[in-house]
Each structure stands twice: as structure tokens, then as C-alpha cells.
């Protein structure tokens, strides 16, 4: 029973890590209808920016919010400079651009900051308050992911800009006709996704250590969580990621060898998608042809 509770909590804290990444993936999907494979490397780079500022002696929370702001600007610029020229190109071209951003950011981070693993501080006290099952940082991660989820949900559902962004993802032509600044909405979507990714990066780095490869595994799980829950739904992405984290851990502990747990978790996802192609909480999109 002890092991079960331990693995449950470990799964939840892993799930929260995947969820933070999944939220950034959902954000960009909701505004551009694209799955950004460079999202993980963007988050990694943001974490390096924060690490660099912390090294200069900037207090944690100031560095935290400056990093979010800088990442937002980088996201908007990336959309304007790199994505917009290929926006109407075939999907494959856009994927290649994503891959290019991935490789460039990865190499750039290694070149500037080096490939050795680095310690990234947690804003939460180290002394565990709730026993040894879960650290304060993991609790803090879950809380911040929850707060981000509420903010994203409120933004997309109750603000004019959020609704306009969702509209742009679904039908750009109609949005232009009703006077929505489509270009700005796309840029805003990229900026917000980069900002969410920055938070994710800063939450993940204290756990997995900071280096250019820190997101390689996380991104796979983030995508899996988002797709499992429904990639167009922030609630679904978070719940999907938590389910993935817990199921993966319990499977690895009680049912199969640990080396197969990712494979089995992904097979489960495929099975669920066969029954519910849009994810557990996803909507079925009907488009008029």
C-alpha cells in the first residue's frame, strides 16, 4: 500500500510536468491549428534565459516574470519572422520550419550555455512539509499548472480576444470578414504559448536539471497527454497528462517491466483514440466541405 501511494504521488507529479508542457501545446493548437514540435526546445531556451538572469543575481520572481515577458516577445517574433512566410505552404513545409527551430534552439543553447547539466533553483522551500512522497516543488508545480489552466480557460472562453483567437484557428476567412486582426491573433497565440512554455520550462528544470536536452523526453509525454485528453481542450490536456503519469507509473510497478511502460502507455493511448479520435474530452469538429 505504501508503494502504491508513493507511485500514485510520483505519477501525479510527473503528470503535472507533462501537463505544463501540454498546456503550451494546446495553446498553440487552439490558435493556429498546428502542433508545434519545437515547443519543448522553446521552453528549454526560456529556462536558460531565467538561469542566466538568476546567475546575475536577479531575484527569483523578478527573473521569473521577465523570462515570461521575453519569451512572449520571442514567440510573437518567431511567428512573424519564421512561420508567417510559410503559413500557406503545405503542412510539410511548416513541419520542417518547426524542426529547424528545434535544431537551432538546441544547438544555440548548447553553444551559449554548454551541455553540462546545471542546477536550476526551485522557488519553493526544500524542507518537505508533506512527508517524503511529494516535494514542495512538486506540489507547487501542481498548483501553478492548476492556476495556468484556470487562466487559459477563462481567457479562451470569457474574453473577446480569446474568443477571437479560437475563431482564427477555425476559420480565418470568416474572422477577417468580421474585422478580427488575424495576423495579430496568430502572433498572440504564439506569444502566449511561448510564455506558458517558459513557465513549464522553469518548473521542469529544477526536477530534471537544466541542459539543452532536458525537454526531449518531456515533449513526447506532453504530446501524449494532450492528445489523450483532447488537444483542443486545456482541461482535457491536464487531466490526460495526469492520467498518463499515474497509469504509466502503476503499470511499470505492478504489471510490466519498467522498460515497457512508455510503450504500453502509448499503446493505451492509441486504443483510446481508436474509440474516441478526439481524445477523452475532445470535441468532434465538423467542418462544412
Amino acid at each position, binding site marked *: 500500500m*505504501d*508503494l502504491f501511494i*508513493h*507511485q500514485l504521488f*510520483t*505519477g501525479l*507529479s*510527473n503528470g503535472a*510536468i*507533462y501537463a505544463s508542457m501540454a498546456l503550451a501545446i494546446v495553446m498553440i493548437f487552439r490558435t493556429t491549428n498546428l502542433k508545434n514540435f519545437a515547443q519543448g526546445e522553446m521552453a528549454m531556451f526560456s529556462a536558460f534565459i531565467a538561469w542566466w538572469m538568476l546567475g546575475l543575481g536577479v531575484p527569483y520572481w523578478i527573473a521569473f516574470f521577465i523570462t515570461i515577458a521575453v519569451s512572449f516577445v520571442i514567440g510573437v517574433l518567431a511567428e512573424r519572422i519564421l512561420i508567417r512566410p510559410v503559413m500557406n505552404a503545405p503542412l510539410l513545409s511548416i513541419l520542417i520550419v518547426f524542426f529547424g527551430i528545434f535544431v537551432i534552439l538546441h*544547438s544555440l543553447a*548548447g553553444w551559449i550555455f*554548454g*551541455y*553540462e*547539466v*546545471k*542546477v536550476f533553483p526551485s522557488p519553493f522551500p526544500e524542507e*518537505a512539509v508533506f512527508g*517524503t512522497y511529494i*516535494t514542495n516543488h512538486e506540489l507547487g508545480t501542481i498548483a501553478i499548472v492548476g492556476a495556468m489552466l484556470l487562466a487559459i480557460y477563462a481567457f479562451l472562453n470569457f474574453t473577446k480576444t480569446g474568443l477571437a483567437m479560437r475563431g482564427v484557428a477555425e476559420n480565418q476567412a470568416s474572422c477577417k470578414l468580421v474585422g478580427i486582426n488575424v495576423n495579430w491573433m496568430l502572433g498572440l497565440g504564439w506569444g502566449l504559448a511561448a510564455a506558458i512554455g517558459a513557465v513549464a520550462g522553469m518548473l*521542469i528544470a529544477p*526536477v*530534471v*536539471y537544466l*541542459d*539543452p*536536452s*532536458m525537454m*526531449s*523526453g*518531456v515533449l*513526447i*509525454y506532453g504530446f501524449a497527454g494532450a492528445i489523450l485528453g483532447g488537444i483542443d481542450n486545456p482541461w482535457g490536456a491536464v487531466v490526460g497528462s495526469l492520467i498518463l503519469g499515474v497509469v*504509466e*507509473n502503476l503499470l*511499470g*510497478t505492478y504489471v510490466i*517491466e*519498467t*522498460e515497457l511502460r*512508455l510503450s504500453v502507455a502509448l499503446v493505451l493511448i492509441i486504443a483510446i483514440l481508436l474509440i474516441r479520435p478526439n481524445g477523452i474530452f475532445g470535441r468532434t469538429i465538423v467542418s462544412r466541405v
Partner: protein
Amino acid sequence: MTNLSRRTVLAGLAGASATALAAPHVRPAGATPGVTDTEILLGQTMPYSGGASGYADWGRAEVAYFEMINAQGGINGRHVRLISLDDGLSPPKTVEQTRRMVERDGVLALFGSFATSPNSAIHRYVNSRGVPHLFLASGASKWADPENYPWTMGWLPDYPTEAKVYAQYIMENDPDATASIFYQNDDGGRDFYEGFKAGFGDQVDRYLVGEQTFEATDPTVDAQIANLQQSGANYLFIIGQPRTMAQAIRGSYDSGWRPNLMINAGSASVSGTLEPAGLDKAAGIMSVAFVKDPTDDTWADDPGFLAWSAFMDEWFPKGRKSDVNTVYGYCMAQTMEQVLRQCGDDLSRENVMAQAANLRDLALPMLLPGVTINTAPDDYRPIEAMRLQRFNGAKWELFGDTIGG
């Protein structure tokens, strides 16, 4: 027909100039590639780019070492040129670069190519072509197979040998204890795992109570650590890259389990692994060593250390003296130097292998006292001796006698 004749003339000119350009390199029939009266050509691949580029100074130190040898007059009157090419630790690239060096540059031998998977990719190729493939920067056990792969020889102590040392330490010093192992699920990790089990001999079921693996893609390893904790083992042997290793050291401490830790020597860097894990959490960790730690002031007045330090100052000033990889490169280059000296003027590929398999009690300045290099036609393991060391919270301290060898 003017066109045709012009072409013929041009072709003739091109052919003539190619011959003229190639002339200085043309060897008499039967001579060994890569050897002239004034030069010996060697080749290697190193990760100068990408995630493993932290190891780059290993190769740079070797190149610098041969520059020093050349400035001192070379080996038997010949300068040694080491071509060191980047493969980014990507095996397809290793194949491409190696073929380039063997087939175009015509190297005498490959020396010191880096890591297990890149060398695996060229293992068959170099053996089918009969190119010496010497002193690999990898400890996989498969390099010591003279019967099937007579042209390949490793250099680092091999992984099963290292793992056995830890198992035997537990059996001798803590016979009532139990042990567990946590390793990356790849060739190298399984080498350690098999060696660890073999070290316990027929007592393996009595001692080894927990084993878990991880994949390179696992973001965290908390789940595996929780499973290992459940085994209640007193010892945990961790094998992995610095990032995973640091996570496992921290995780086994924070969970309250706090077993006695052992880590593989390849990831035992203080700055690379133990500092990220937390020096207080890493205190007491055991590992093995076979070279002098350049940051250990025990060696401050040691002639071998001073010679290395002088080499670094004069020939490789850009290299960091705290980086043990420069020591590995230095020792490895000296091993190669010894082979070439033993060859004398018979620099055939066959003789290079024969001399590589004929090293006797070679004591290098930066190897630990008691650790020597020995090879024979049926012994392709240059370094088999090592010493245990324990991390005291600030630096590694050697203890016990030399083991193996």
C-alpha cells in the same frame, strides 16, 4: 573533331596534373597506407558538436600531445599526424568520416575513436579491411574479442570488470547487506548489470534484491527509485549519464531511503554529476579510479602530474586542467606513442596490432601508482587494475589496495 581533340587534351592535362599533385603521396607497391619516411598518419572521430561535446577536450588533448612529440623530433624520425574529425556522436556520421580517413586520407590506423555506439558502427568495417582500430574511448566488453575482431582493441577498464569490483566490495566488507542496481537500458548498462551479477557469483540471489532500468527518454526516474526503495537494499549501484545519475542520487536521498551509493567511474565527475545532485547528498558515494585526479592536491608535487601540467600549459592552454578527459587523452596518446615506438621501422598494420598486443607493465605518468598497461595476443584489455575511491563531500579520496590487473 576539334572539340574531341580539345577534350582529349584537357583530359590528358587533368590526368597529368592529378598525377603530379598526388606524386608526393604515391607509395611504392606493398607499403602501408599512412606511412612515409617522414610521417605517420592516424585518424579518429570525436563528438566536437552536439550533446556529448563536453568530451571534446579528450580528442584535443591527443592532437596536442602528438604536436608536442613532433616538436621533440617525432617517433623514430617520423612526425605523427592525428586527424581528429567530428561525428557528433552520430554513428552514421562516424561511418562516413571513418571511411573518408581510411579510403581517402589513407590512415595507418584509427586511434581513440569515441564512445560505444559510434565504434560499434565501424567495428565490422575496420575488421574486414584490416585497419588497426586501437584504444577506443569506450569500456564496452565487446572490444576485447581478438578471436573474432583481431583489429579492434579498447582502452578503458571494461564495464563488467568495474561492476565486479563493487559487488566484491559489498561481499567482503558488508556480508549481511543487500544490493540493488539501476542502469540505462542499453549495451553499456547491460554490461555493468551482467558484471555486477557475475561479481556476486552463486550468491547473486542472496545479495541482489532490486533492479530497475531507465530509458534515455525518461524525463524523471522517481518511479524507479520508489520501486528500488521498496526492495530495502542497503546498496544502490547507479549507471548512467550525469543528468539521470544526479536525479537518482538526489531522489534516493530525498525519499528518505539513503542507501550506500556506488556510481560508474565514467560519470563520477564532481562538477558534472555530484554538484548538480548536491554535494551533501553525494557524500559517501563510492566509485573507482585508474588515473590521477587532476584536482586532487595529493599529486601537487608528483613528477607525473607536473609533466602533465607542463604539457597542458605549453601545448593545450585552452583545455581546462580540472577536466579529467584531458588526462584520459594524455594517457591514451602515450599508449599509442609506445606502440609506435615499439614498431620501429616496421610500420605495417600487422605489426602495429602485434605491438599493441605486446605492451608489458607500461606505467604512464598519470595512471595511479600500481595501475599498469598489459596486453597480449589473447588479452585485449590494456587497463584492468583500478582503485576504489570515496567522495568525502568535497573531493574523491582513494582507499584500499589496487584491485585486479
